[in-house]
């Protein structure tokens, strides 16, 4: 089975996770921060573990009762936003 490489978190972007499930990314170069919802936290933690795109989707499917299509769309949307903000490469 072929795997699609997921983007990698940049070193100057620092993740903080909170007990309520949400999180925050701080970009030390741009001096900006971004709030993450629970799904985005899960995706970010997968990226930190260098999981592939398929593995990230499987993690989402393991946590949320959603279809594979819905999970893939959510992960793609989150990755697109992370790329747009230059938080990953």
């Amino acid at each position, binding site marked *: 089975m072929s795997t699609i490489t997921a983007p990698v978190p940049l070193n100057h972007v*620092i993740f*903080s996770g*909170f*007990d*309520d499930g949400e*999180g*925050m990314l*701080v970009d*030390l170069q741009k*001096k900006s921060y971004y709030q993450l919802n629970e799904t985005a936290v899960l995706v970010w933690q997968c990226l930190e573990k260098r999981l592939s795109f398929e593995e990230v989707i499987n993690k989402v499917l393991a946590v949320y009762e959603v279809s594979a299509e819905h999970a893939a769309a959510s992960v793609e949307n989150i990755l697109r936003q992370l790329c747009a903000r230059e938080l990953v490469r």
Partner: protein
Amino acid sequence: MSLGNILANGVQIALRRCGIYKLHAAGVVKPGSDKGALIIGDSGCGKSTLTIELASSGWRYLSDDALILSENCGVVEAHGYRRRFALLQASLDENRLSRLAEALGDPFAANANKRWIDPAVLFPNRFAERCIPRALFFSDIRERFQTTVVKLSQSEVMKLLIRQCPPTHFDLPEARQHLRLLAQLVNQCVGYQLMAGTDILTERGRASALLASHMQQ
């Protein structure tokens, strides 16, 4: 910049290298407990006034303005960084403190409207060397009578803490560890926005009852 400020900045940089971070906040401890509350905000947000009010109601105090934070066995502790209080003359006039004349010190160099106060004279044996914060109150003064307290989400608390800790942004070698400590502080505390009205000043014990009621958990 005065020599004192240069030295203080040097000390803070050295402390950050050791995992110890300054926070512009007042620190108090709820009576009959070891639960610490930090009152956080810019100058003029009521930190000193609230600290005086709470100490008058039996709370122990760490500082009215400056704390240092460090992590000990996975728990964030707060320590007082400045022992003397600095109060606006107007706040001093409004407070009915016994032994005030005895506690009054020189004018505060950074703000001619403020005076140094020795809290050890006003509140003997109430100084707390350190505390474990369990509540964070982000304070600002509102032009109304009644004080309002609103619970904040953990993300909102983190944003407000980052705004209060500029070294998080510019002191890159320690930024990761600094942010980790702030996140730990967020996770061990409940955060509130405290919109302080005049009732806190006019009703003795009001501040104590209000803050204590939000530290029941």
